[in-house]
């Protein structure tokens, strides 16, 4: 009797484990590589119509994780649809991954060696993943494609994503920049003009006038507030840099860098700029803070989401510093290929990335973004003609692309920039003076450069 019971027990266990195995076997591919299996079914009709083509070109499906919102996903899918219309053996699926989850999900995919074939993400992700063998070096595998892409990328953008050693783990998909926003109605009321400041002096003059008119904290800073990204623009505007051109030396403890830091600190000490990370826009909308610093991505929807101030605000470039340059922080999305992607898919992915740098690819994305009331900022000013916006906006985009600088691609910058942020914050909160802060910033980058 007992023997029968044990046999039954073992049988139940074996069956339940087999059941688990089956669940894994049937579910895993559906989540991990859903598109690899699908195309055979969808490509079959094509195969009957174009037998020669299918004999030559193997069916390939690409899964792209697009970091951002639905608009970002739609933009990539629009380009993918245009691409697959010309490449019948290829299917491309763009899945949106929100910024908040994307980094962790990409890392999980890299750890598992399974997931998307292509990812888009933050400017530093290509270097981070690539230097850890998580993304392929496009330059090593597709030098011709990379050469062409480089020719269609602004040099200042290229510098931000390609390290001095020359590996190209990712290329720029689109650009985002930090911009100034002004409440024109309040500017007119206080200064009698809607002209926006173009230099540091004009900028601080405006803030003084606004304070005198009762705006105690006239500036609302969102993207880059109290951190290295905020300092970044001022550093270049003052004529400073983080490193020497060959990345061999840290150059933060210089008069230019000090001037930039003093200017930044004054915004908090004299003009009472809020120190919260990403404060709410409501102070700008309600007119408590008539000046705002934020990313360019708010432009398309701002009139729709904030109808109460429609037509009462204007975007503008950052003011020019002592160097005469109005440099702004350049961000945006990069695009690259994961290292575990099969070779055939890598080849198609590289071709698709190259396609994004063609007139058709840019037009497909720019038109989609325009249909969503947005402006596509391509990585190259030669593409501006393909963006369906008026000449004035085109000129603005060209201006921005010429003056924006991304984070330096010198080794150790990613690991060192929390040290810059900490020193800046210590100075803002009065724990150390500007001089000590600069020394700490210099030391933070030197430490990681030497590592």
């Amino acid at each position, binding site marked *: 009797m007992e023997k029968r019971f044990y046999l039954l027990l073992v049988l139940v266990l074996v069956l339940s484990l087999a059941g688990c195995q089956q669940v894994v076997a049937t579910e895993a591919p559906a989540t991990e590589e859903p598109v690899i299996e699908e195309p055979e079914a969808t490509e079959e009709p094509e195969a009957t119509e174009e037998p020669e083509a299918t004999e030559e070109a193997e069916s390939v499906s690409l899964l792209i994780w697009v970091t951002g919102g639905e608009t970002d996903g739609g933009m990539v899918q629009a380009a993918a649809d245009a691409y697959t219309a010309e490449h019948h053996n290829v299917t491309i699926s763009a899945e949106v991954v929100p910024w908040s989850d994307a980094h962790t999900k990409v890392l999980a995919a890299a750890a598992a060696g399974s997931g998307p074939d292509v990812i888009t993400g933050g400017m530093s992700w290509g270097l981070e993943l690539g230097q850890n063998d998580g993304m392929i070096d496009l330059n090593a595998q597709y030098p011709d494609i990379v050469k062409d892409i480089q020719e269609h990328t602004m040099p200042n953008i290229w510098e931000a994503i390609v390290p001095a050693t020359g590996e190209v783990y990712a290329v720029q998909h689109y650009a985002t920049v930090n911009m100034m926003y002004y409440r024109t109605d309040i500017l007119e009321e206080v200064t009698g003009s809607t002209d926006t400041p173009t230099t540091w002096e004009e900028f601080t003059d405006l803030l003084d006038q606004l304070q005198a008119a009762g705006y105690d904290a006239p500036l609302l800073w969102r993207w880059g507030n109290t951190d290295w990204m905020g300092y970044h623009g001022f550093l270049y505007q003052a004529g400073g840099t983080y490193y020497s051109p060959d990345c061999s030396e840290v150059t933060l403890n210089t008069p230019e860098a000090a001037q930039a830091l003093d200017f930044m600190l004054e915004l908090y000490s004299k003009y009472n700029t*809020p120190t*919260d*990370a990403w404060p709410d826009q409501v102070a700008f909308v309600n007119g408590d803070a008539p000046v705002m610093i934020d990313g360019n991505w708010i432009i398309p929807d701002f009139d729709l989401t904030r109808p109460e101030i429609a037509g009462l605000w204007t975007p503008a470039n950052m003011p020019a510093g002592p160097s005469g340059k109005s440099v702004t922080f350049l961000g945006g999305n990069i695009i690259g290929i994961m290292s*575990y992607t099969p070779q055939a898919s890598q080849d198609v992915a590289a071709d698709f990335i190259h396609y994004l740098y063609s007139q058709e690819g840019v037009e497909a994305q720019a038109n989609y973004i325009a249909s969503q009331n947005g402006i596509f900022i391509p990585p190259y000013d030669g593409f501006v003609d393909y963006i369906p916006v008026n000449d004035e906006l085109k000129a603005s985009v060209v201006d921005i692309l010429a003056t924006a600088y991304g984070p330096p691609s010198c080794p150790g910058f990613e690991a060192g920039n929390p040290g810059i942020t900490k020193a800046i914050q*210590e100075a803002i909160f009065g724990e150390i003076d500007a001089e000590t802060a600069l020394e700490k910033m210099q030391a933070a980058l030197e430490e990681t450069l030497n590592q």
Partner: protein
Amino acid sequence: MTAIARGSQAANPKVRHQSKISKYLPLYGMMLPFLLLFFVFTVWPLFRSIQLSLTDYTGIAAREINFVGVDNYRTLLSDERFHTSLWNIARYVFFTVTINTIVGIILAVVLQAQGKINQITRTLFFMPAVTSGLATTVVWKYVFRSDKYGLMNILIASLGGDVIRFLGTPKYYMPIFVFISIWGGCGMTMVFILAGLRSINPELNEAAAIDGADSWRRFWTITLPLLRPTLLYVVVTGTINAFQLFDMAYIISGGGQDSMGGPLDAGLTPLLYLYYLGFTRFNIGLASALAWILFLVIIVLSLILLRIGRFTEDTL
């Protein structure tokens, strides 16, 4: 014959052993699926994390893993941000556990009678414990927002005060964390202590009252000493939970890679730093080492608390 056979079977240790096996085998068999999952998802990752803490594992499958010895532990012990996170959590644990326990005792003593109003009040205090911590933290973030539209600032303005930049000022981070934790945790502590209070024989209090002891004296000499096992449980579990603060710190400080931990790392906790190292800096080896240091700190602290609990029990 049968009795003799049974007697000889019981006397034979081998047979007795076999009989035990046959008695418990079905039970272990039934536990097997759970044990398998427990091993795969708990025991194995636990030991794997020890192994990873001694490597430079980045979390990327293609990357070669190198043994680095105790370098990760050494790096962390000299890491200023890790020190800051430990200092932050030490203050948080101390204030949260102390205040939470005191508030829990007060609530339990005041609301222990079985009246209708007490039942409703107890339910109100317990409600945050059954609400999603993430959801309530998001709401609290809006309460403490720094501009004049935050609920707390509206309240302060109505009393004639100036706007306080709660989330833009380092010194407010820990008090806010402690406040939210006590708001969310005192109801649960109250329930534990209520259960402890109900387990005390009422005759002891009655006898003391007849002997002339006032309510304050009865509380100090009878109720509190007899509540010690409950209080020990509340303090030890509270300490362990408080050390693992993550979600609140993540949400309140913004959660972005560059803003994680708030201004001057005022809201940086060890688990938040672990997340930062592991999932934004691709340094799983260092993050694993941090997890083990935190584990050791919690174990040592729990043992000290248990020892103190036993010591006070022996001395009373």
